[in-house]
């Protein structure tokens, strides 16, 4: 009669590894060792997690939400969201002006935005939590008004045709119609304008963030306040069909370092999602993306870097009234109404030469005087007399390659997925991008919206997918 001394799963050759593990544990328990059962480890992340999402802004939380929503069985996937700043003081999400529009030139962008606006409209069905009050996004459905000069009129007409094909409700207006509808505009230099009639406007991004946070917590996603400092990965050398050698990497562990301390926790994971916004480039470097001879796939870095943008809030007593849409001028200057007290928010994207230093979030008020105000006053004569109330700065997760998002897995680091690089329109596409990344992770391909043009490989192949207008 055979007596089974070990549990049936243990193969005899595993025993040596187990013995050394037990020895290490005993050593740590003895005085001087690392294990202290009375030490509170509730601030540390768990030791294992199926998916680790680096970055807890709207994109990261959106991916977490859709992963939990599209999982096949309840509780099948353990998700951990790691963010190093729980106050979100530098996060692009909360510093954003909060606009959402469908007036893009790429059909993928339009589809992303259409689904996102659908999500926002039904947010109290998607993000409902039992016993919690419904969310009030404070959505202003006033539309975007994009102005084009003679040069841009043909492009704008083309764009509007594509937008209408995808289902966006946009109309074109001549300068005469503009003057009738919005008498406070000076139409000098404007050849054509496109006006979004429905599903465009602005909302409160903080509310969306809190709603997502509350819902994903109720779905069982763990949060950790810490910084990702290291990825432990293993490499495999394989040959492609044509005989070339490729090194594929797989991330096994993520080291999460706690705030203001040297303590770190290695989190064993299967998939890492890079949703770190303006700092995604640094996270990609940690994973070894871009470490190779330039011009090869190993040497292609993730071209996302932080770019500082200013937003100014001013008061103008004779300014445009309640019906003011989100106006984008031919010069790139934009503004929108804020509240009922004749306050307006606006700004402008600086040119490449004027890019401010992204090291801090200090506001340059001279930029408003020199670059923003003249254009505002030219377009809306009432803005000649205004008073700046306050200003702040935020980061764009700027994709230096083509200013559109990066979505999907990396070809070499096989279990890192990107959801970043949206260069100023990440917030308005976040719900749809979250769903796309979740589909990619769970199914292996995009199911609802085809975002194949936004994969990482386009940086190596040199295929730019560029938009005509960005704000």
């Amino acid at each position: 009669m055979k007596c089974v001394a070990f549990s049936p799963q243990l193969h005899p050759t595993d025993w040596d590894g187990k013995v050394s593990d037990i020895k290490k544990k005993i050593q740590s328990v003895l005085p001087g060792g690392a294990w202290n059962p009375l030490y509170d480890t509730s601030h540390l992340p768990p030791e294992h997690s199926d998916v680790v999402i680096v970055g807890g802004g709207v994109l990261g939380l959106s991916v977490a939400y859709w992963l939990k929503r599209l999982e096949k069985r309840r509780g099948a996937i353990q998700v951990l969201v790691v963010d190093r700043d729980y106050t979100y003081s530098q996060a692009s999400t909360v510093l954003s002006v909060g606009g959402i529009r469908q007036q893009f030139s790429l059909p993928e962008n339009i589809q992303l935005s259409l689904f996102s606006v659908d999500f926002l409209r039904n947010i109290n069905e998607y993000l409902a939590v039992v016993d919690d009050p419904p969310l009030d996004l404070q959505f202003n459905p006033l539309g975007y008004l994009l102005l084009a000069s003679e040069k841009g009129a043909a492009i704008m007409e083309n764009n509007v045709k594509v937008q209408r094909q995808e289902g966006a409700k946009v109309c074109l207006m001549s300068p005469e119609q503009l003057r009738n509808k919005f008498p406070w505009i000076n139409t000098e230099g404007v050849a054509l304008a496109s006006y979004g009639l429905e599903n465009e406007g602005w909302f409160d991004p903080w509310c969306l963030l809190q709603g997502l946070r509350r819902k994903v917590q109720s779905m069982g996603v763990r949060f950790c306040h810490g910084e990702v400092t290291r990825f432990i990965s293993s490499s495999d050398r394989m040959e492609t069909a044509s005989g070339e050698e490729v090194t594929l990497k797989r991330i096994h562990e993520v080291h999460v370092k706690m705030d203001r301390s040297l303590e770190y926790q290695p989190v064993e994971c299967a998939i890492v999602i890079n949703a770190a916004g303006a700092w995604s480039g640094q996270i990609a470097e940690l994973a070894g993306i871009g470490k190779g001879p330039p011009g090869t796939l190993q040497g292609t870095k993730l071209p996302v870097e932080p770019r500082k943008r200013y937003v100014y809030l001013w008061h103008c007593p004779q300014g445009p009234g309640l019906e003011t849409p989100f106006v984008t001028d031919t010069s790139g200057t934009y503004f929108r109404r804020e509240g009922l007290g004749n306050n307006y928010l606006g700004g402008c994207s600086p040119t490449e030469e004027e890019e401010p230093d992204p090291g801090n979030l200090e506001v340059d008020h001279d930029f408003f005087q020199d670059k923003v105000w003249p254009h505002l006053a030219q377009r809306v004569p009432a803005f000649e007399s205004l008073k700046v109330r306050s200003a702040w700065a935020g980061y764009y997760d700027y994709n230096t390659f083509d200013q559109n998002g990066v979505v999907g897995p990396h070809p070499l680091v096989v279990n890192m997925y990107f959801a970043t690089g949206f260069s100023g329109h990440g917030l308005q596409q976040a719900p749809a991008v979250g769903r796309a990344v979740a589909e990619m992770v769970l199914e292996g391909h995009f199911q609802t919206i085809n975002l194949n043009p936004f994969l990482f490989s386009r940086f190596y192949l040199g295929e730019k997918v560029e938009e005509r207008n960005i704000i």
Partner: protein
Amino acid sequence: MAAPRAFLHLASSIWKWGPRDIRGLSRTVAPEGSQRKGRALLQFLADHFYDVEALREYLFRKQVLKVHQKNRSFTHIKEQYGPYIAGAYFVLKQGGAVKFQGQEWMQSNGRGRFSLDFFKFQAVPVEAVDASGCAINYQGLDNLLALKELQSLSLQRCPHVDDWCLSRLHQLAGSLQELSLAGCPQVSERGLACLHHLQKLRRLDISDLPAVSNPGLTRILVEEMLPNCEVLGADWAQGLKLGPEEQS
């Protein structure tokens, strides 16, 4: 959105509590009265038992689906009899009243029954719709927006009509002369701002809107926005604080 400094204070106070209590903060809006004890019991059960939580989520989803079912579009009727009949059928089914051009008001009786002889008015446009208290939402509005000669629309006390619905009303800009939104709990000044498309509007009722933050100021701004329209709303002096020299 105000300057972002405001949220820092809130976020740090959330973090002092454990992860469980993030939801607790949003429950600071406490229901008054005897409902509180029943609510507290339900909350306790949902917090501690997965089955109760799942059951309550299921019941909530059923409620949502019921509203969706009421707002489904009647494509068959629309194809067969035209948009006017489909719109009228939709309104009557919800419990509202409809008036064809040259005819009297038609409404379902107390038990939701109504006669189907308006089906013969295929070419007669619908002139007025009274959907007070009906469960119309964004989807259901499709049926009303097809009525291109609608002159008077009353959406008083509709619980699911919100700012998104108002942003769709621009499709009726060619004909709508009278609109009433009194008592809608989800309509705010942001939705009222989209009414600037309705240039033919002559009467607008925006009284008693609980979600509007500044009823008096909103009324003035809406009057400026729609100069040819008579706006019934809150008194503009409501909410004004007397200055120190005016206080007796």
